[in-house]
Structure formats: C-alpha cells, structure tokens
C-alpha cells in the first residue's frame, strides 16, 4: 500500500483526535515499519488493518465508521493536493465516472506497480450511477467514505446504496441516486 495513505491516516488521527492518540496507536501496534511512513514509500497493507483495528479499540468506534471517515478525509486532501483533476467538472457523477479512466491512469504513470481498485461505472438512467468497486484490499467502507467526500465536495444531495455481489466477494456495487 502506498505510503501516502499511511501518512494521511496518521495526519487524520492527529487532526481528528490528537497527536497523543496517533502516538499511542503506533506504539501499541508494534508495526514492522515502526510506524515510520513516508509518502513516497510502499508498506505492507496488513499494517493498515492493524492500525484501523487498534484505533477502533482505542476510540470505541466501529472499524467501518473509521474507514468511512478516513475516506471522506482522504477525498478532501485529494481536492487540496490535485485541483487539476477537478477542472471543468461540476458534479460528483461526472467526477466518479472518470476515476478509472483518468485519475487512475495518471496514478499508474507515477506508480507502475500500484495495485489500484477498479470503479466500473454505468448509468442505467440519467442521474443514476452504478459504480462497481473491486479491490484486492476489499475496503468498501473506505470507498464509500471517498464517494461521500466527493458528494460533499460538490455540495450535492445524493444517496448511496450498497449491494454486495454474491458472485464476486471482492466487489461491491454502489448505487448513487438523487435525494437524501
């Protein structure tokens, strides 16, 4: 997993909780990396699982909620760091539809070995977006948080429904439609 995700995760804990919390989390997690992360490095994704699990125990918050919050936080940071991706885009559906074809393509140029999730998008009806998320990491909560962050960024009122796909346990279908 790319170091930038770890760096942002620790920063989120610093901001949302406290630096004491991130310190305690790192100390108690006894990670192979020692919790020393740089955004240009690559680390074992298991460390993220440990970190999220331990944060859940420390804060008495369910893992799914933590991942969703992290997704929303990550999206905000994404907007701050890469404003170019948002030029000429006016809605979350526009943006989400081109994550695979544009954003991930750009990521791939920088990190050839990145194991990126895929977001297969279809619009069965206007204003209705089906997004099939599939990832080796299988983190649909994080994906939902990212989608939520996106909707918040565009200030839209859209609702997200989630459907697991029995034929593919590593995939989740997100149905994004108007209304709350």
């Amino acid at each position, binding site marked *: 997993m790319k170091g930038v995700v770890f760096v942002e995760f620790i920063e989120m804990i610093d901001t949302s909780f406290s*630096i*004491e919390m991130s*310190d305690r989390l*790192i*100390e108690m997690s006894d990670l192979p990396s*020692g*919790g*020393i*992360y*740089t*955004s*240009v*490095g690559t680390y074992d994704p298991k460390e993220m699982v440990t970190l999220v699990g331990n944060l859940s125990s420390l804060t008495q918050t369910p893992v799914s909620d933590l991942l969703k919050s992290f997704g929303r936080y990550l999206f905000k940071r994404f907007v701050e760091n890469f404003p170019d991706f948002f030029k000429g885009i006016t809605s979350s559906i526009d943006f989400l539809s081109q994550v695979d074809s544009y954003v991930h393509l750009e990521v791939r140029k920088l990190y050839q070995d990145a194991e990126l999730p895929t977001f297969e998008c279809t619009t069965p009806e206007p204003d209705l977006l089906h997004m099939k998320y599939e990832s080796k990491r299988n983190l649909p909560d994080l994906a939902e948080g990212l989608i939520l962050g996106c909707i918040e960024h565009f200030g839209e009122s859209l609702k997200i429904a989630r459907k697991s796909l029995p034929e593919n346990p590593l995939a989740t279908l997100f149905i994004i439609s108007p209304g709350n």
Partner: protein
Amino acid sequence: MSEELNLLRRRFERERLARKQAENIAEVKSRELFVKSQELEKTAKAELKAKHEIELLLRAFEAFTSRLNTSEIADHLCRYVDKAISGHNVSVYLRKENGFQAVSQKNSAFGDPLGRNRASFSEKIFQFTELTASVVIENVRQAEVHHNFRFWDDTHSAMIIPLSYQRRIIGYLTAENPIKGTLFEEAQVRIAQALANEAAIALENARLFQKVEKLSTTDPLTGAHNRRYFDETARKFFKLSVRHNRALSALMLDIDYFKKVNDTYGHDTGDEVLKKVAQTCRRLTREQDLCARYGGEEFCFLFPETNASEAFIIAEKLRTAIAELDWEANGRNFFVTASFGVSECVHPGDSMESLIKRCDEALYAAKGKGRNCVVTKT
C-alpha cells in the same frame, strides 16, 4: 510533562527516520531514472540513425530508378554508399565484354583522390574472380585472396559487394578503408548491400534500355545508323541549321552495279561490300556527321557546318577510298565504285524534304554521267 516530552521525541524521531527513508527512496529512484534516461537516449539515437538510413535509402532508390544511363546510376551508387558509410574510397565496376571496368569512383577518405591516374584506371579492364556473396577483407596487405581486386596504396581493409541481377554478376561495388584497425561494421555492410541490390536492378534496366535503344536505331548488318534514326536526327540537324543560319549539306552514296555484285559473287560478298563501305564511311567522316544506311545499297549523310563544296571534297575522298578497295571472291579480283549526290541547305525557305530530294536528283545525275563520280545540286 516528561511524558509529553517523550511523545514529542518519539514523534520527532519517527519523522526524522521517515525523511531519511524518503531520501533513500529518492536516491534509488533517481538512479533508476538515470539508467532509464540513458537507455532512452540510446534508443532515440538508434532510432534517429535508422530514420536517416531509411531517408538515405529512399533518396538513393529514387535516384537509381529515375535514370536510364548506367554510368549515371553507378555515380549515384558511389555517392550514396560514400554518404552512408562516410569516409571511404568507393568504386563501382561494371561487366563489359571482356572483364570488369571501373565506371565510377568516389573518394573522401584518401588525401589525393584517384585523380592522379583515374583515366588509366577507368580504361583498364579487370579480371576479377567471380564472387557471389559480399566479402570483408580485414587486411588487404595480409589477405591471401584478393579475388584479383586492386586496392589503393593507402587501403587497409576493404569490402567487396557483388552487384547481381537474377543471380548473374553484373558488377562489383568496393569500399576501401585507409585507417589501420578499423573494420567495416555490420551495419555499414548491410546498408551498402541494400544500396547495391537496388542499384543492380536499375543498372540492368538501364543496360537493357540502352541495348534496345541501340537496336532500334542501328542497321544490324553494317552497324551504321538505320533510316529511322537518320530521319529523326536529320530533323534536329535541319532545325539547328535554320535557327543559327549555319551551313548544312547532304550527301547520298549509292554503290554502282550492286545487283551485279550480288548476282556474280553471291549475297555474302554483297554483304561484305556493304560492311566495308560502311566502315570506310565511318573512317572518313567526322564524329558530328550523321551517316546512315538509307536503303539497300544506299547511304545518306548530313554534314553540319559544311557547305556544298566542302561536302564535295568529303564525297571525293569517299569515292576514291571505295574505288581503291581491293575485292576478291571466288578467286577473282573485282572493283566496286559508288556514285554521289551532294546538296546544300538554302536559307531561308528550304526544307528537309527538298534538301534530300535535290541530293537524290544529284545522285541520279551522277549515275547518268557514267557513275563513280560526284554531282552537286544546290
């Protein structure tokens, strides 16, 4: 307080180590990038070289195929091979009846080019050992087999490429390298070979074209030009004479009693007479004069820059020379004579047809006067 200090220390240490890690990663990445950029540069250079090669080949192929003259094609082959492998002495030899002749040379590596004895070199006919595949000779001083090729004094290594068309060797391309220890690279041989292959096709086409052109303008028995060539060329001579207001004379020669020669001594002897008369005509006329077998035993001439009295002198020379020829057939000696008619172009208002008609009339008059004489009709 001390707990807070410890926390900050740990945090600071983690950040310091993370920075160190980032620096290491950056160093590794920059090394990787450097290697990649070098690879890219190498690829780009190779691609550029390949592009230049293709451009050169295309230009060369165009130059070869747009020409129908063997020496022009050979010159282009020399020039393009020299360009492609730069800095070598390049020669092209073409097959002649009795060996190979150097028809073109290009020298850029040797101080004083072959100018010193180029003329004698190009006149010489070489007897090369027939080679069917390209050969690179590392050291021409030590090589036992030179395939009878002659190399220049400064030459160290050389390559010989056969020019072949449908497995027939039509010539050779040679490139010579004066610098000791430098061999021709594989790529140089390859491009020279590609140029040679294409040039060989063009050379063969040009040779055939020249052959057909010669056949269509030459009388096969006497080797003189035929009537078709005479008519085409006479028109050009006439136009030039009118434009520049220069003298132009016509001469017609008809062998006297030729039918009798054929009947008495046979057609073989008749053919011999025609051949010998044609030879005499060639010998006694100038290079710029036009001479052709006009009919059975009739030859026609055009003399540029020549008036009727000058043409008369030439005709007299021809008449005497023919009359003095000794003939023998079936054990008997005999003589052959010819009658001549001369006419001169009258400016302005004359025409080619009228010039020839007057010439013919003069010839008729010469026949009437008892033959073996020259009559002028202006």
